[in-house]
């Protein structure tokens, strides 16, 4: 084991990205659902703008249903989870059946939540299983490079989303620092000059979120 091809590195990387996308967007979805109860019923529009997706929902109720459960919408949480599964299933020999099972369980959770009376509370199980997935990645995958490619995908996706969601600067800086740790261990090709510039930018507390985001897209070389 441990022979990583371009195809396999791609699947591992996107497994990390999609899994993180589900995790972070779901946490923000919970926050949005809370805000829409009484503070700001139209808050979903802000969320759509921040994460760069079209507001095709029309109402907070439609948003709550469709953003979580609509498999025909590529931006929905379930679609991201399905894409994580697509990348996991072809990497069973690298990540192991046990690790893969947590993605399947998260899919089962989201499908069960769709038909339940306590949708949001039941969606918390998805978070549980994603955390279990990460635990299994850490515990069950011996190959350091494989583990770190998945984590690099996770780190880059989280940084991308934190920038989009306009999280506080110190949180973005922390996420960036963690991502850099995975970058060196993943042994994928990246642009050192981009990293150098990002280092400089993020050393200042009033960095431009848009500039960092644009640079981030250029970091990993194909």
């Amino acid at each position, binding site marked *: *084991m441990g*022979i*990583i*091809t*371009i*195809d*396999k*590195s791609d699947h591992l990387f996107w497994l990390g990205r999609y899994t993180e996308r589900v995790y972070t967007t779901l946490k923000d979805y919970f926050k949005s659902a809370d805000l829409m109860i009484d503070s700001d019923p139209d808050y979903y529009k802000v969320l759509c703008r921040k994460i760069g997706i079209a507001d095709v929902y029309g109402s907070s109720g439609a948003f709550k249903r469709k953003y979580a459960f609509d498999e025909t919408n590529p931006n929905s949480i379930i679609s991201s989870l399905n894409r994580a599964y*697509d990348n996991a*299933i*072809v990497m*069973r*020999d690298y990540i*192991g*059946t046990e690790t*893969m*099972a947590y993605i*399947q*369980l998260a899919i*089962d959770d989201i499908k069960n939540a769709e038909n339940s009376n306590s949708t949001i509370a039941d969606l918390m199980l998805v978070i549980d299983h994603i955390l279990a997935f990460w635990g299994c990645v850490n515990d069950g995958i011996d190959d350091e490079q494989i583990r770190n490619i998945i984590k690099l995908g996770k780190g880059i996706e989280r940084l991308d989303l934190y920038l989009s969601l306009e999280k506080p600067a110190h949180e973005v800086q922390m996420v960036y620092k963690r991502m850099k740790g995975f970058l060196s261990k993943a*042994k*994928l090709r990246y642009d050192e000059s981009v990293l150098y510039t990002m280092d400089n930018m993020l050393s200042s507390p009033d960095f431009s979120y848009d500039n960092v985001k644009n640079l981030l897209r250029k970091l990993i070389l194909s």
Partner: protein
Amino acid sequence: MNDLIRNAETINKLLSRYGVKFGIYKNGEFREQLFPFDPIPRIIGNDEFSYLEKGLRQRVDALNCFLSDIYGKKQIVKDRVIPEEFIFSAKGFLVPCDGVTPPKGIYSHISGIDLVQSKDNNWYVLEDNLRVPSGASYPMIARELQRRSAPDAFTKNDVIDNRNYADLLKEVMDHVNTGGINVILSPGRYNAAFFEHSYLAEKTGAVLTTGKDIVCENDNLYYIDYNGKKQRVGAVYRRISDEYLDPMTFYEESVIGIPHIFEAYRKGNAALLNAPGNGVADDKGIYYFVPKMIKYYLGEEAILMNAPTYLPYYEKDMQYVLDNFDILVIKDVAEAGGYGVVFGSSLTAEKKSEFIALLKAEPRRFIAQEVIDFYDLDILDENGTKVPRKADLRAFVLTGRTTKVWASGLTRFSRNPDSFIVNSSQGGGFKDTWVLSR
């Protein structure tokens, strides 16, 4: 046993958790389905298994001798044991394989032999599968999960542990490996048996590939890593049909094969498991001759019986088939997976005369068999009630340094009370197969 039945739902949930699925195309759409599992195992006693083991080893050894002969001297044809038209008209006889000897001279490394037990307790071989037989992974993982959910059932019964299948497979791959890594070549995620491909890769430590990462250079196969470094490939357990394996030799429009892989194999630089061209030996027409092959190559009487079979190709057999059409099952030799099977009794008068005309026009295309009265196995129906259903057994026989029979197998059953068809693609389920150590 009650523990197993009580925990049936748990096992099916765990099978879902671990992605134990098979793919199916329906109305042009790909879907993954769970392979329904029944908790009541088929139990085979030790004496009975010893008998099956001897018969299966004998059969597979003879089939390997046949393949070696057919792609070599063709002595069995020269000696008129098998008419040559049965060889050369068989879809599975591949001209490019003629004269090619695979590494260590083994053609069928993994053989799936389908058997049924009749009500008088006799076992009959229904079919030999020597190309890409699938299904071993399902009882492997089901056993793993049943041991967790009902450990007492295994403490109280002396069941031989079947979780060594991956070790047996690895042993075979290592034995024929010409120097390099072992890979499992899969058509990809949307293949019906993709779960099995990925699970066996995980369990044997072989690299799972769809072939995109493999190149053939100077008649050697290499696996190319992320940095462009080449690793030699010594054995390819391919789960791709012969015709798609190499566009340079077989079906030229294949996009799932590896160009020039056949050349690497022909020169002895990589082993292919199973060898291309094996289809000539598991042809339903050739099946009739397997007992004769055993006598011819091994000088022994066949231990395992074929289902009584008639070849309309022979005038005498054609007459028998016409006289007894209503009590026979007719099989199209070119079909598989439960397709192309016609029960004489099920046809209307009009369909029957149409079919007989076809049979007379293309006698080589069909075989006819007596309908074996299967020994039914109990399964649990949707209400948890035990009901009898038709079931077969796919035994897995692995040939490396020696020929070994896996002490388990895939027991498939029909969920339809009126059906003999057990294939998963047609709604069948599976159960574990226990071989007892006493």
